[in-house]
């Protein structure tokens, strides 16, 4: 498995389903394996496999905030109202899955056929992240 044309491996895209075209795109270093979360205030949260948790403007894609966590994010961010009435956003950091198998399974990057070929596209992931497993909860201002 190889990166796409231009070395592309991941992109976070906002689609306009009515006009069937992307509104904005954010290129990422690795596949964006996390889920996306949009709050009622038009803020999009998503995580990257190199360990950034980002908040961007849902209309423009402008980066509003980012936070480096201990390991790559492949989980689904969630939001909830706490018993204190505040809104929180929670996400689990801890890289893995098919694309993160090279880190989670300590696979050998010299064999590009490892993990059914995904190791070949992710040989540099161990330089960006290690194993992890942490829940991060952020309070919205």
């Amino acid at each position, binding site marked *: 498995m190889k990166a796409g044309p231009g070395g592309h491996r991941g992109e976070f895209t906002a689609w306009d389903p009515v006009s069937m075209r992307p509104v904005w795109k954010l290129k990422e270093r690795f596949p964006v394996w996390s889920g996306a979360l949009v709050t009622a205030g038009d803020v999009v949260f998503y995580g990257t496999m190199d*360990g950034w948790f980002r908040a961007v403007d849902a209309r423009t894609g402008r980066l509003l905030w980012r936070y480096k966590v*201990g*390991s790559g994010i492949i989980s689904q961010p969630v939001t909830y109202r706490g018993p204190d009435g505040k809104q929180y956003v929670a996400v689990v950091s801890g890289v893995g899955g098919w694309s993160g*198998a090279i*880190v989670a*399974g*300590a*696979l*050998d*990057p*010299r*064999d*590009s*056929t*490892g*993990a*059914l070929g995904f*190791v070949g596209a992710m040989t540099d992931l*161990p*330089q*960006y*992240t*290690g*194993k*992890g497993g942490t829940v991060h909860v952020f309070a919205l201002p």
Partner: protein
Amino acid sequence: MSSRFRNAIVLAAVALGTAACDREDRDFRSAPPGNSPTDVVRQSPLQPGPMVMTSHVKNEYEGNAYAVSQGQRLFTWFNCAGCHANGGGGMGPALMDDQWIYGSAPEQIYATIMEGRPNGMPSWAGRINDSQAWQIVAYVRSLSGLTSPNVRSARTDHMMMNPGAQSLASPERPVQSTLPPAAQQP
């Protein structure tokens, strides 16, 4: 030079040549090494009480290029590659690195194949015969450079990360695994 002396040199050369051919020898009659080790295969010399040192079983196939290449074929045919890829691992651990959960000695790898291991490795006892299992053991050990490079079988082209990776001029060494900076203790 006397003809007798010359004959002696020719004889010596022939003897040397045939000795070197052991590498490719196809021995169909000898029993496989350490036919099903009867002792419990230990993964560590550590135990309660006095330390017990056990000697490792010698796998005759390790010095034989034919047996190692047979091991490579069997590795594919029994679908070892389904989990271990071509040594880099996948659902199963990598075999070409220096990390051995259940030991790297021939009898330890043999026990791993025949008895299975928790969380995924099935037992192949009764499905692979002894000599084939030992050929796979020889191939698995060759992946991480634990056997002589002289009998190593060639890897397939798609495994070459860079040209000349297979040449004996730049033999592979098992790389010491190091933790990435992000995973190191502060």
